[in-house]
């Protein structure tokens, strides 16, 4: 028998019992769809992480206090940031950040209740958050605690609408600030609205907005930009030993945390990795269960069609012809199941992506992988029933009722 004849006989075998064939394929369909959706979700997550790398500022080292709530650090001081800037080699910039308690920020038109972020002058460079209109505040303004503010893109819209905010006055708490710049639009990055900040000189935060619990020059985060990827390691070691010395703590039990983007990425990837391996198991088990389903139904089919096998043998079908016929049928079941699985998987990935929270990227190789696994399952689990059919004795088979 040639290829097209084998295919058409197998197709007739499958379509003779459409509902049964569809149910048999279900395991394969679920397995293949799971593989594709799983890979689409993890590729989507990876793409999101990659964007975060790019938007967090290049070669960024992030120093935070180990204990204490955000914004209420007990140990990290502005002088630590100054010391890092002076003593650590091969760094391109240092910036510190402190957040106020919730304050009323108002213009002549509108008022918002929010926290305000105090930073140093090189914050836009270190964090890679560029200014859109106007300018950021300068070192001089920082040193003399000038009452100037830079608004996030969204805040500028909220407070001033279409009007140009630069040169206007905003009142933060009870203090009047002059708006000198508006940040470029950045949007949401890993759940943080970068357009929703108001930046003022950190020295003003220390002067005007410290509560009794956060006296002094405590900072929430120190951002250090390394000169290059190669100098990261050395910069981190220097920062750690410097801070340990200044805080009088052991290096292996510090009261601060030094993280890089890579650490953050690794943490996030560890989370997605766990999710991914769980889904890989589900997909793998489903494919195996699907394969057992195919084997089961093929064994039933061989028994049901023993007479047919005998007839085919009597007119000259060789054991090989019979083996190929049933193997092709099993393979076709798994491939048609695989094809439906691909459609369900691609459609499911698309729906996941379109519905919001989860970003998905459909990876073409995942379709090949899933399809290939389905084919392998078909051959593996189809061989035993096919071989059983091929070994039937023609006389017994013809006598079978």
């Amino acid at each position, binding site marked *: *028998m*040639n290829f097209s*004849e084998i295919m058409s006989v197998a197709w007739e075998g499958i379509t*003779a019992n459409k509902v049964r064939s569809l149910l048999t394929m279900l395991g394969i369909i679920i397995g293949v769809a799971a593989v594709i959706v799983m890979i689409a979700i993890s590729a989507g997550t990876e793409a999101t992480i990659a964007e975060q790398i790019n938007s967090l500022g290049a070669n960024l080292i992030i120093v935070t206090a180990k204990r204490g709530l955000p914004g209420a650090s007990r140990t990290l001081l502005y002088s630590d940031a100054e010391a890092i800037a002076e003593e650590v080699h091969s760094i391109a910039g240092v910036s510190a950040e402190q957040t106020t308690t919730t304050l009323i920020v108002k213009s002549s038109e509108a008022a918002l209740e929010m926290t305000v972020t105090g930073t140093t002058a090189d914050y836009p460079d270190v964090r890679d958050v560029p200014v859109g209109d106007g300018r950021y505040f300068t070192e001089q303004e920082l040193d003399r605690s000038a009452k100037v503010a830079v608004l996030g893109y969204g805040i500028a819209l909220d407070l001033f609408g279409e009007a140009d905010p630069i040169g206007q006055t905003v009142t933060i708490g009870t203090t009047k600030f002059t708006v000198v710049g508006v940040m470029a639009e950045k949007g949401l990055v890993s759940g943080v609205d970068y357009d929703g900040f108001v930046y003022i000189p950190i020295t003003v935060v220390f002067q005007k907005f410290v509560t009794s619990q956060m006296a002094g020059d405590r900072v929430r985060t120190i951002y250090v930009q390394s000169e290059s990827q190669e100098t990261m390691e050395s910069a981190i070691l220097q920062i750690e030993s410097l801070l340990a010395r200044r805080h009088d703590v052991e290096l292996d039990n510090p009261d601060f945390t030094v993280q890089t983007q890579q650490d953050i990425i690794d943490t996030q990837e560890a989370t997605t990795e766990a999710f991914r391996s769980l889904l890989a198991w589900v997909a793998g088990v489903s494919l195996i269960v699907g394969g057992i389903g195919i084997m089961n139904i093929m064994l039933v089919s061989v028994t049901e069609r023993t*007479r*047919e096998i*005998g*007839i*085919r*043998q*009597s*007119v*000259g*079908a*060789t*054991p*090989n*012809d019979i083996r190929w016929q049933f193997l092709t049928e099993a393979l076709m079941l798994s491939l048609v199941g695989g094809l439906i699985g691909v459609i369900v998987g691609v459609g499911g990935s698309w729906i996941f992506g379109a519905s919001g929270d989860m970003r998905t990227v459909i990876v073409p190789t995942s379709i090949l992988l899933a399809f290939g696994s389905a084919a392998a399952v078909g051959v593996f689990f189809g061989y035993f029933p096919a071989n059983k059919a091929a070994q039937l004795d*023609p*006389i017994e088979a*013809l006598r079978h009722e």
Partner: protein
Amino acid sequence: MNNQPIIQTADLRKIYGMGDIAVAALDGVSIRIDPGEFVSIMGPSGSGKSTLMNILGCLDRPTEGQYILAGEDVSNLNKEQLAAIRNRQLGFIFQSYNLLARTTALKNVMLPLLYDQNNHRTNEEREAMALAALTAVGLADRVNHQPSEMSGGQKQRVAIARALINKPALILADEPTGNLDTKSSYEIMDLLHELHDQGNTIVMVTHEPDIAEHTQRVICVRDGKVESDGRDGASKCAQPSAAEVSR
């Protein structure tokens, strides 16, 4: 037609089981059937006639002895080779027709062509051959009917068309009229006679003496041996048992 026999067997034995419980279903059968003969094989159940039929049909192999079919020794061929012999040299007609269900008459008749390893015909050629074979058995108007839509006589005609499609050296009919009413039986026998007149060699297994009477030569088998082999009809065969007649 040359003088080479279609069937030549020498001391065929088929033994089932081993040692003390070994049973010889065939115990030394030597027959010769020449081209163009129409032969009946008769015998009560358990006589070994089915075993003989299976071996002659290359569905089974003898334990001992030699079987030469159309000049080729087929006694020791493997399963693949036997399948090829069945395809090329043999046409089967069974008591229960053995047509594929849910398959049209045309496709049933085409079936042996699909397994023909020597000829790679196009589908159109195969369909034309099958149509010609169905026309020859008078079923040109039933080509697209499925077995469930046909009478027993029509089904048996389809089976005969299928047996003829590869122009076999030998047609083997196993109780071809066993499931048919008298009228259909005679129609089928007339068709077999027609095939015989065209030069086909036919071997038919039956237990009905009136059917066996149609043939030139009747071989009677009993206890695994050829009891008689004659040209004078079924009369010389031992009368079948009452149980055999009522079956």
